[in-house]
């Protein structure tokens, strides 16, 4: 049990528990906070893996921007309501649980039996290498994602805007 393993277990537990809390908590605001925690834990996992740049981006985009976005979304809709009362769809919940459980079992079985080799030290992806890749090999995709973000920005504004009467 070295330090890495320790930190991995800690952050993994935080991520999983936060994720469960997103589903379980009563208030929407609490759920969003749990979500932020979950994202943060995932960022920590990235650091553990030696992907510092991705980890920083994860904190900035997910923990920062998207969480704030969710807070806005929550505020502009039914944030006061604490749930919608008892769910009428018991079958849906049970079947959902069963189905997802089976899927998880499948995946875990696959992961365990895949017998992946364990390399020693992690490959450290620095910001420089990522930048070179982005502006070299993936230049067109990079520009494409720029267009995607622009159009998403405009689209979001257009959709969310109040229709002129």
């Amino acid at each position, binding site marked *: 049990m070295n330090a890495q393993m320790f930190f991995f277990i800690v952050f993994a537990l935080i991520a999983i528990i936060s994720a469960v809390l997103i589903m379980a908590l009563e208030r929407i605001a609490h759920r969003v906070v749990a979500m932020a925690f979950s994202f943060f834990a995932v960022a920590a996992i990235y650091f553990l893996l030696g992907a510092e740049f991705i980890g920083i981006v994860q904190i900035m985009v997910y923990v920062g921007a998207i969480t704030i976005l969710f807070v806005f979304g929550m505020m502009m809709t039914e944030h006061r309501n604490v749930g919608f009362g008892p769910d009428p769809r018991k079958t849906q919940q049970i079947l*959902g649980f069963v189905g997802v459980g089976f899927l998880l079992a499948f995946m875990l079985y696959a992961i365990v039996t895949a017998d992946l080799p364990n390399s020693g030290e992690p490959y450290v992806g620095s910001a420089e290498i990522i930048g070179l890749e982005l502006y070299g090999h993936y230049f067109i995709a990079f520009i494409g994602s720029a267009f995607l973000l622009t159009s998403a920005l405009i689209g979001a504004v257009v959709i969310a805007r109040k229709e002129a009467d």
Partner: protein
Amino acid sequence: MCHGILKEKGVGMMHYAWLIPVFPLITFLILLVAGRVLKEKVAYIGIAGLALSFLLSVLVLLERIGGETYTYVLNWMTVGENVVTMGYEVTALNAMMLIVVTLVSLVVHIFSKEYMKEDDRIHVFFAYLGLFSFSMLGLVLAPNILQLFIFWELVGLCSFLLVGFWYFKPEAAAAAKKAFLITRIGDVGLLIGLVLLFNRVGSFNYAEIYTAVEMDQLSAPMITTIALLIFLGAVGKSAQFPLHVWLPDAMEGPTPVSALIHAATMVAAGVYLIGVMYPLFLASSTAMTVVAYTGALTALFAATMALVNNDIKRILAYSTISQLGFMILALGTAGYVAGLFHLMTHAFFKALLFLGAGSVIFAVHHRQDIRDMGGLWGKMKVTSVTFLIGSLAIAGIFPLAGFWSKEEILASTLINGDGFLFLIALVTAFLTAFYMFRLFFKTFTGEFKGGDLNDPTEETFNEQAAWEATQSAEVGLDAGYEERKVYPNHQEVPENEPRENAGLMTFPLMVLAVLAVIAGFINAPFLGHQLEAFLTAGLNVGTQPHGALWLAFLSVAVAVAGISLAWAMYVKGFIREDFFSSKAPSIHKLFQNNYYLDDIYLAVFVRPTKEISLLLWEMDKTIVDGVITLIGSLTSRSGKAMGKHQDGQLQTYGLVTVFGGMVVIGLAFAVRGYFG
């Protein structure tokens, strides 16, 4: 003459023969488009069109006499190695027919102008007349039997339209339907015959068919089959036994139409068909026998039915059937010229009789029962005299047209037929004279029995009344209009007695009367059988029989006997009118009821067909529809059941997708042993 100049250039009048049917077609199209606007003037357009056609027909005939057959065809389509052509042809036979058709049609047009003047749909009437003339002229000009068939069907359509002209009258609508359907039976036979002919000969052209028959390209049974099938078409169209039942009912149409149908167009088409296909018939003695006996039986039966009828138009209708039987009989006994000669003379005097009857009906305010007539002799001078001429002509009194043609028919039956046929022909001739003069005496002599013509209590259901009924229903609020329509046949306050009609109606009668007198001379023996020489030139239709002098005397004697009997019964009363009917009431009844043929058809064909149809309908409803309904309801029910699960809930879909994905993964796992 202009055609002389044209001839020098090598293009004769016959080259323009195709214009003859085109004129009526143009009038039809004009009236179709502008009929409503032109109103009363439509008659002039129709008359003008037909007059042009008639003029052209005369020119064509003049050129054809002493000329050659002119044929002009274009290739229409190529079927394998055979070419189907379209075009026109001027032969001796159709040059004659052109004159007959255009003349009678023209006269009918003129007559209709007066007769139909009060009808609000006069433009439609004249448009139909134009189409009818066009169809018949096209039929006559056709150089091949396929084109003939096309126009043949058009003629059938036009007669349907015209017989059912007063379609708001149920009888008229039924009669039109009957005419159409019954002639259809014959048309099917004709069509099969056509197909067989094309199959064996490889051409529809008359000339090539004649050649094929002469060169023995067809086996004898095949010739008989084809001839009989074609004859079936003629039986339907020319109202021969047993398909004659439509013709009396066709009297529901306006009287001028009856004149046109009976004299020049519809029924003449059947005889004409046999005429153009004559070499084919001549080649099969079986077919000839069938033709002859059909004609003879029809002539006799129709004449007996005419004896007892009281409707002036129906008597004439039966008389037409009977005379058509005569023509068919003549053709069936190798009397090619005799049959066609009678077709021509009959066209003139039958048109005359029908238009005369129309004139009478018009004068007595659309009554048709001869028991309500009488004593018109003094009141309707022109009509009476011309009608008498027509009656004498049809009875076959020397020297009127009917005498010459009827004598030739008797000659051909005597020489080429057997004694039985000759006897039937003689008896029929006697009956013809009798029933025609029964009609004549009852209508024109004695006292007028129609009572007060303006008596509204008088039961005068007729075409005009029915028309008015619908009219007044349509314009119910327009009181002034209705008042104007009360007595549609006379402009001013009508008199209580029948009187002669306007000149436009009597003029056609006079023209036809003249023709009924002189038309026979064109084939008179002492003038050298001109028509025979004309018609048979270049055609191989066998030698034409001619009767001895005694036959002519016999023929006239029989006719005179018939007339005398009628005179004795209906004028002098030597013999009581009900003498025969009281002696043999069953036979009387048999005649009156059309030999129960309609009832037999009803019982044998119509009812069983209806029963079977009902049965099939039930089967269709229960079994076929049942299965379909079952499948349908199964589908919709299962659809509904499935639809319940399609609840629009995103998450339900997602769940199904998850399970679906798992099934795929599970299958991969089971089959391949997990991604291996």
